[in-house]
């Protein structure tokens, strides 16, 4: 289908585990977990208390059983202890789960914010599809939930609770405790083997999930196109292929995971049986070797009831192991995503007055592209001048504008703004008002949408910018005018109206550099003619660069540059 490979190319690469990578990933996860603060410790502590209550419950059953012959008065205290211990288990494990969830909540919120910031800071030419970014910021961050809320407390508790149980067992029957301790080493080895085998598969399964998610999002977004080419059948088949691939990978992961957890369970059951057989034969006096201790019913029953609790924390750990794998996979992907982000340069400090701009032998080449978009470009712009960039599509007009914003890499040469070097400043964004080809429309009023470029702008300034951008007739038609509310997609806005909102936004920002990218595209001749004086007005007192195909618009420029 030609779909699998490119999709994974464009999503963050997942690396095979190596020592250095493991160390880095561990450090990354540790950092992420830290945000949970003391709740991490609380979850573990409460889980250990749960282990103590389990010991109490086993004691209550054993005590109750042995005192049954002594009359109901002797039994009651044990029964009460049993109910209290059981309730204690419930309370402790509930509180532990809540503490773990709270730790996870804090860590996830912090991490998600980091990922959102990183996603938005990936330069235009290198950005993965929105669907893939969304999977990272929402679902992959969510993968840390199980790691923090379940795996981490389980791992800590697994290092403590078995020894509490072992101690309690040793009080009743040192030999049984010895049997349990003896089985500990092979059990832990089996546990460790469980992990490695499944990790690789889990990683691939996560890739498949991300691919399916991207594909769904894209095809639903493109549904009008798919429908107009009557390709719904073929695209459904493609989705079916992706869904089936996900199923096959998931089953592979599960087969390994279930097999290893089954092995652990079987091993634990055999160990408990060993204790049971020892206790039984000891009680019968039929041990084939000299009895190391004299057991009675109470002790034997206590040991037997407690034995499964020796393995329970480790089995809980094994059950939470896929949480660890999911978190590690997510950690690799999120780390790669963060690495793609180019920390937004603070940029040169805002320039007060319309500056001179000078391009010297500028070349721009996006990473992974074999062809430079712009090469050997030279241009001198005097302060306050209006320059029109004309040229065939793909000649790099938009890229030159993006360069000033720090959205395209300066591969060679230099751009000087009032003598300030772009290579040092990184971007001149603080001094730039900009209008692009795909305006952002957010849910909210038209005024709020215009004011995105200057959020503290007074109402009159917004109204003035809207009027100057030619939004007047549209505002008159809508109830509420500037306060008319737009939904997420700006339903009901024509292409031209969107451009005017973006233009109003550019005019509202009090910046000495004005960059306009195709400001009159999609407008009919009449509307374009009406807009040209508005642009000329807006350009007053600003150094202005207009990327356009319109000769009529270019006619207002002081200088016309033809790219080829």
């Amino acid at each position, binding site marked *: 289908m030609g779909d699998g490979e490119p999709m994974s190319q464009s999503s963050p690469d997942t690396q095979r585990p190596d020592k250095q990578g493991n160390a880095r990933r561990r450090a990354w996860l540790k950092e992420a977990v830290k945000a949970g603060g003391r709740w991490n410790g609380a979850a573990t502590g409460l889980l250990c208390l749960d282990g103590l209550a389990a010991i109490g419950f086993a004691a209550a059953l054993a005590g109750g059983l042995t005192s049954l012959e002594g009359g109901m008065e002797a039994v009651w205290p044990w029964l009460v202890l049993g109910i209290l211990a059981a309730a204690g288990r419930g309370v402790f494990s509930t509180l532990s789960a809540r503490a773990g969830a709270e730790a996870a909540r804090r860590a996830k919120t912090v991490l998600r914010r980091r990922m959102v910031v990183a996603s938005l800071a990936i330069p235009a030419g290198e950005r993965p599809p929105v669907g893939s970014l*969304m999977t990272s910021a929402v679902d992959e961050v969510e993968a840390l939930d199980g790691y923090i809320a379940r795996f981490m407390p389980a791992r800590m508790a697994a290092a403590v609770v078995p020894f509490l149980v072992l101690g309690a067992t040793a009080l009743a029957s040192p030999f049984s405790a010895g049997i349990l301790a003896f089985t500990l080493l092979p059990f832990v080895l089996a546990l460790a083997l469980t992990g490695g085998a499944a990790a690789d598969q889990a990683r691939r399964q996560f890739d498949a999930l991300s691919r399916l998610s991207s594909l769904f999002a894209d095809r639903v977004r493109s549904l009008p*196109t798919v429908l107009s080419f009557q390709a719904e059948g073929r695209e459904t088949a493609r989705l079916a292929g992706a869904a089936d691939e996900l199923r096959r990978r998931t089953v592979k992961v599960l087969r390994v995971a279930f097999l290893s957890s089954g092995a652990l369970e079987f091993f634990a059951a055999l160990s408990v049986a060993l204790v049971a057989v020892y206790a039984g034969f000891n009680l019968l006096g039929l041990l084939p070797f000299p009895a190391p201790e004299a057991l009675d019913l109470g002790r034997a029953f206590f040991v037997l009831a407690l034995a499964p609790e020796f393995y329970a924390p480790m089995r809980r750990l094994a059950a939470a192991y896929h949480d660890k794998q999911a978190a590690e996979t997510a950690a690799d992907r999120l780390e790669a995503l963060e690495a793609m982000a180019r920390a937004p340069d603070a940029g040169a400090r805002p320039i007060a007055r319309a500056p001179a701009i000078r391009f010297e032998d500028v070349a721009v080449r996006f990473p992974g592209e074999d062809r430079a978009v712009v090469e050997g470009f030279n241009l001198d712009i005097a302060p306050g001048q209006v320059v029109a960039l004309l040229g065939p599509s793909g000649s790099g007009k938009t890229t030159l504008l993006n360069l000033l914003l720090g959205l395209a890499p300066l591969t060679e040469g230099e751009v000087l703004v009032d003598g300030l070097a772009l290579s040092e400043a990184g971007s001149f964004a603080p001094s730039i008002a900009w209008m692009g080809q795909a305006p952002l429309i957010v849910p909210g009023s038209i005024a709020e949408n215009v004011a995105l470029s200057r959020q503290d702008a007074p109402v009159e300034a917004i109204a003035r910018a809207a009027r100057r951008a030619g939004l007047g007739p549209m505002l008159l038609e809508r109830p509420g005018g500037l306060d008319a509310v737009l939904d997420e997609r700006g339903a009901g806005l024509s292409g031209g109206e969107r451009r005017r909102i973006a233009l109003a936004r550019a005019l509202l920002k009090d910046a000495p550099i004005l960059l306009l990218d195709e400001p009159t595209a999609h407008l009919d001749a009449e509307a374009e003619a009406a807009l040209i004086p508005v642009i000329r007005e807006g350009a007053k007192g600003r150094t202005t660069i207009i990327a356009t195909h319109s000769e009529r618009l270019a006619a207002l420029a002081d200088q016309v540059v033809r790219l080829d």
Partner: protein
Amino acid sequence: MSSPGRLQQLLAAERARQRGRFIIAGLAAATVSAASVLLLGLSGWFITGAALAGAAGSASAHAFNYMLPSAGIRLLAILRTGSRYGERLVGHDAALRALARIRPALFSSLAAAPPARSMSLSTGEASARLVQDVDAVEAHFVRLSANWGMVASIASGTALLLLAGIAPALAAAGIALGFLLLAHLLANALQARGRAAQRAAGRLKEDFATYAAAASELRAYGLEGWAAGRIDERSQELASAQSRVTAGAGWFELGQAVATGLAAVAALGLSYGGPLPMAALAALGAAMTVDGVSSFARGLERRGTLREAEARLESMLDAEIPPRPSRPLMDAAPAIRLSRQDALLRPGEVVAVTGPSGCGKTTLLETLLALREVEPGRISLGGADLAMLPPDVARRCFAHAPQDAALLAGTVRDNLRLAAPDASDGELWEALRDAALADRVAALSGGLDAWLGENGARLSGGERRRLVLTRAYLRPAPWLLLDEPTEGLDAATEARVLDALQVRLERTGQGALIVTHRPGPLALCGRVVALGGREVAGPALVPMIG
């Protein structure tokens, strides 16, 4: 809900398909539960019996049959472990198989739904629905075997405890059922929390998609922090909703622990007066009976999430598909009559559509493509009212190059093959040349297999437009619908594109409706249809993509 919705029908059909696997998983779950109850009961009985026999002296000890119980214990341990592996693997496999068919079926239903329904889904929300909601349904499918485990647990527990007496058996069964009732009530009370969390996740994705799609503009105005803050609010809402779900789940945990303890203690106490080994059997068996129903009870905890997911998927699917009389496919190129403009467009005519921005030029093309509803009597196609034609019949008459240059995430080839699945590379290159794009594609690393990124992010606006034009060329339809085909092109490229278009139209005999206000394309057109005034357009059904 009086009659099952389309989703329920779909789920039922897939459940029926996987019935064999679900039954195997259920039987395995029942075996696990019964084996657990018997294993613990038997162990308790064995130890206690051994203790009594040992205390009674060496003769009784030798008379005590330890072979059978200890063999039983081993058998049950193996049976439990093996069955649990089988239950998990087969249950998950069945659920995954069912869901791998349900996902595409959902997309297919979405494509068949009226455009107003299917296209009102935005990127983030749509993806949340299709992926996350389907996952919730899948988790439910996985849990189906727990029903069998629950029944087997109560049945085997009650039967085993009857050996110790009627009272312990009734107590254990009663406590297990009481726990289930409590879980059911809790699940109902906590449903709203699960739904809220699901919705919060959808809103987070929706907002994230909106802002991530506009990352360049955010950078330009230094709005990244602001946008991150808006997304962060959604993230916090989701986190709080999830905390409430966890808090709710805690009650199940508490209930289970108390019920287990209560059952064991009650069975022990009620065995008073009976033989000691039977009391041990009752206590441990009762504890395992409650344990066996707990995975079913924990499934109830997810009820809110499931109902929410189902409701949302259902609302996506349940739209009435308007019944249209099926007609034989039109074989000849049909004429188009626009009654409002009183224009009859004959096959092969090249027609310009003009008018001020916002007058509905794009809407007209989308209406012809049955992407929008049309009033009866407004447009006819080949003599038939468009409103009465099945969408497929209308769509096969047109090759569309939309204004918003919507491309699929995929390669150049993927995008072109959308129009012509069987086209050879030669045909693809020829169409690319006609759109003056062949040189650019040849320069891309990978050529036809170059990955374009989402919505053709690697191409400039003009290049995307020409790729969309290429795609329209490749579709052998009697009419081309070109929406501002040369907008954003420089004069030289525009001239090349239009020359090639003219040659193409003469060669293929295709008609064309060209939305434009530029002199170049207008010169190509034999006539002009002017859409006057501002028509009241319906809500924008087609996602606007820059």
